[in-house]
């Protein structure tokens, strides 16, 4: 009897203990649930690990691991202090002094100093990879004291725009800057997050850096997972199911399908990216300015925006995209007008058309293909035959760089975006006179135009308004001579969970979510 009762008590104790165990474990696991955000991305996230070389997808993660001296806000055309608390430039725009924030730690535990800034930027310039050329105006970097760094320039370039670049402007710990060490999946930045785990082709996990200089007060994510999910419909379903918080790009059809889901929000922002059709100005019949003008009138701009982009774009004006400084209403704009096209074709001696053009675009880009198809149908009305050829990017470039201009394409269709928020690359790279063809697939050369954009670039650091005037003038030359036309400025349509708050789509940092500034509202 005693034994039985004792056994019963023991059993009950064991049961209670088990119950306690289960409950505490349950509570513990609930409490231990980390605050994690998930970004689903269509391809491999980490390509370049070296912060000096970065030039690809990885910027979506890198901008959370590393920081620049300052960050650019294109909506207000102003700069926010990041690693530099403040900065000043000399009256001639040739000397820029940055005053660093004190007590900032790298993920390695070392402190941020002016030496580290000098080392980082000089290493980036020396390696000469990726977008390192943005530092071309820099003559010398001087360490004034432990927390002050001064840049001496060759000409008055806008160094604030360069120093805030999404690529090539990261500051890292000189002690941990071995290329191989980076490539093995390490980081040595000052950003809010640092690498926790990386499985190539699968995921990258960042965890919060406890000693981050802005602290962890308030609502922030503890970890961020970047997940590689190539199939758009799977990304969409993951967003709907709540297993993903954010995706940067979805086909417009998927975006349209998500519109009515209250749990998912579509964020649209004008981008700094535009679709351009570059005309081969060295090959008949497009060597004739009248034919080029006619062609600019044959593009069905509105049909393209409605039918291809479902409204997620606006017709370009000039070649600098809307939202980027240098864009102006004073620049002329082509409209769709077959009458005007017929007029110019007749003047050029092609009243019935009767010629064939080859358009190349990147294979697999559905938008580009559909733009070309729509254009083909309007050209057909004028007796112009358009051959559309989708090619791998490298092959498209190779054809564009063929030594004999007559062997090249007639129309080069592609997207352009700036490496840092400056209109210069839109004008110089595609329309500036070049000894060697890199991206000047118009093969255009106009000394007056070259002179205007060179002066504009030199003024950009000291007299922005005058620089804009010159850029407007230069763009109007392009409209007149039509070596190419920008068709539309892309609007980004991001899909995110409605519960994800704090997200701002900054086109100066394309596809980047600054996760420190975001949180989830339960």
């Amino acid at each position, binding site marked *: 009897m005693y034994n039985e009762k004792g056994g019963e008590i023991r059993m009950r104790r064991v049961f209670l203990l088990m119950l306690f165990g289960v409950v505490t474990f349950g509570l513990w696991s609930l409490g231990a649930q980390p605050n994690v955000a998930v970004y689903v991305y269509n391809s491999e996230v980490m390509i370049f690990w070296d912060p000096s070389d970065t030039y690809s997808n990885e910027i979506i993660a890198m901008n959370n691991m590393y920081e620049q001296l300052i960050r650019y806000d294109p909506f207000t055309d102003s700069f926010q202090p990041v690693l530099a608390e403040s900065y000043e430039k000399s009256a001639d725009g040739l000397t820029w002094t940055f005053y660093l924030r004190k007590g900032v730690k790298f993920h390695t535990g070392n402190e941020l100093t002016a030496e580290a800034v000098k080392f980082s930027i000089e290493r980036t310039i020396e390696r000469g990879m990726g977008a390192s050329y943005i530092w071309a105006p820099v003559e010398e970097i001087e360490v004034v004291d432990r927390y002050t760094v001064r840049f001496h320039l060759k000409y008055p370039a806008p160094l604030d725009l360069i120093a805030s670049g999404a690529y090539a402007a990261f500051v890292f710990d000189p002690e941990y800057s071995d290329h191989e060490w980076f490539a093995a999946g390490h980081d040595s930045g000052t950003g809010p997050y640092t690498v926790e785990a990386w499985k190539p082709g*699968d995921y990258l*996990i960042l965890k919060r850096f406890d000693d981050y200089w802005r602290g962890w007060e308030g609502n922030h994510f503890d*970890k961020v997972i970047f997940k590689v999910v*190539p199939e758009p419909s799977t990304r969409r*379903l993951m967003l*709907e199911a709540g297993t993903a918080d954010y995706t940067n790009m979805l086909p417009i059809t998927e975006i349209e399908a998500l519109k009515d889901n209250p749990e998912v929000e579509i964020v649209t922002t004008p981008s700094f990216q535009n679709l351009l059709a570059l005309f081969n100005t060295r090959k008949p019949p497009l060597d004739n300015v009248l034919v080029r003008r006619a062609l600019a009138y044959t593009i069905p701009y509105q049909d393209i925006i409605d039918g291809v982009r479902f409204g997620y774009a606006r017709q370009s004006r000039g070649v600098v995209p809307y939202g980027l400084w240098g864009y102006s209403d004073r620049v002329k704009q082509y409209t769709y007008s077959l009458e005007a096209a017929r007029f110019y074709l007749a003047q050029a001696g092609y009243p019935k058309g009767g010629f064939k053009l080859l358009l190349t675009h990147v294979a697999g880009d559905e938008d580009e293909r559909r733009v070309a198809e729509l254009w083909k149908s309007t050209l057909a009305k004028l007796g112009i035959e358009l051959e559309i050829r989708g090619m*791998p990017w490298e092959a498209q470039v190779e054809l564009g760089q063929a030594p004999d201009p007559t062997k090249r394409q007639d129309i080069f269709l592609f997207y352009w975006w700036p490496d840092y928020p400056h209109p210069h690359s839109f004008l110089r790279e595609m329309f500036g006179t070049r000894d060697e063809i890199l991206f000047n697939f118009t093969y255009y050369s106009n000394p007056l135009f070259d002179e205007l954009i060179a002066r504009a670039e030199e003024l950009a650091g000291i007299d922005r308004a005058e620089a804009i005037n010159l850029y407007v003038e230069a763009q109007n030359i392009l409209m007149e001579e039509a070596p190419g036309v920008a068709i539309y400025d892309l609007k980004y349509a991001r899909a995110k969970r409605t519960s994800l708050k704090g997200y701002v789509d900054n086109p100066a940092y394309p596809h980047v979510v600054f996760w420190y500034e975001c949180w989830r509202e339960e």
Partner: protein
Amino acid sequence: MGIYVYVTRRLLLSLVVLFGVSILTFLLTRVVPSRPEILWVGPRATAEQIAKAREILGLDKPLYQQYLMYIGAFVRGDWGISIRTKQPVLRDIASRLPASLELILVSMFLAVLFGLPLGILSAAKAGTVLDHLGRLVSVAGVALPAFWLGMILQLVFAKELKLLPLAERVDTITLLLHPVKHITGFYLIDSLLSGNFVVFVDALKHLVLPAVTLSTYPLGLTVRMARATLLEVLGEDYIRTARAYGLREAKVLGKYALKNALGPVITVLALTFAYSLAATFLVESVFAWPGLGRYASEAIMVVDYPAIMGITMLVAFTYVALNLIVDVMLAVLDPRVRLE
């Protein structure tokens, strides 16, 4: 001929095959118009950057020299650096192979588990409703586009019924909470070995939809092959004799007919396995499965030639090895098979 002589001869022949495959693939990847140096430095490279990249990648040397350099390094275990991922190809492949193998093995298991009985039944009950069903399954299995089936399964079982996970190998957050030690790279095995049942169950759940999707093709093949070879065997004299002796039909089928009918099924399955290594990319894409197939397709899209070479060599090696193993196995199982 003794089995050892046979195996040695086959191994030597395999080397010749692999050598041939390496030359052919190397030539093909280099004849295709592509600019690996542009991919290496990024889309906006300057002329100097491109020239430097050509030098680093050895593209400035004659093709035969490039091949010799490649193959020399290859046999020493240096499979080159992927132009797309900038990582050593061998490491890239090693990190993706377990994911593919886990998926393929489970799908093969499902194919045999369901395909074999269905094929046998189909042959045993030839001409009946059951047989028609078996044939329908086999045709559908082979003909259904796997990616489409995958999406339908996702819609039904993940989105609507919420029974199974949508995609991925394992829930990353679960993995964060319950880390698994990397031992084999197979989540099922690693989680079991480390006693981590939460991840085991999660990984198993994640496997169901992609494995079912991927199993349809080998399943259809198994049913068809098993049915066809079994029907052939069942028509033979010794089976008639066995039946005349009054042996039970189950014994005739299971003991006498099946053994002789299995050879071709095994051969076909082994080859499907090798083929699946790189051909699963559609299923891997739909299910965000970080496997070799997806790696292969991404490499092909941008003509990442070191990666393409690596995968091709791996698949070729698997083909050759499996073929050899199957042949030897069949010879051991069936004394009538001569090794010549």
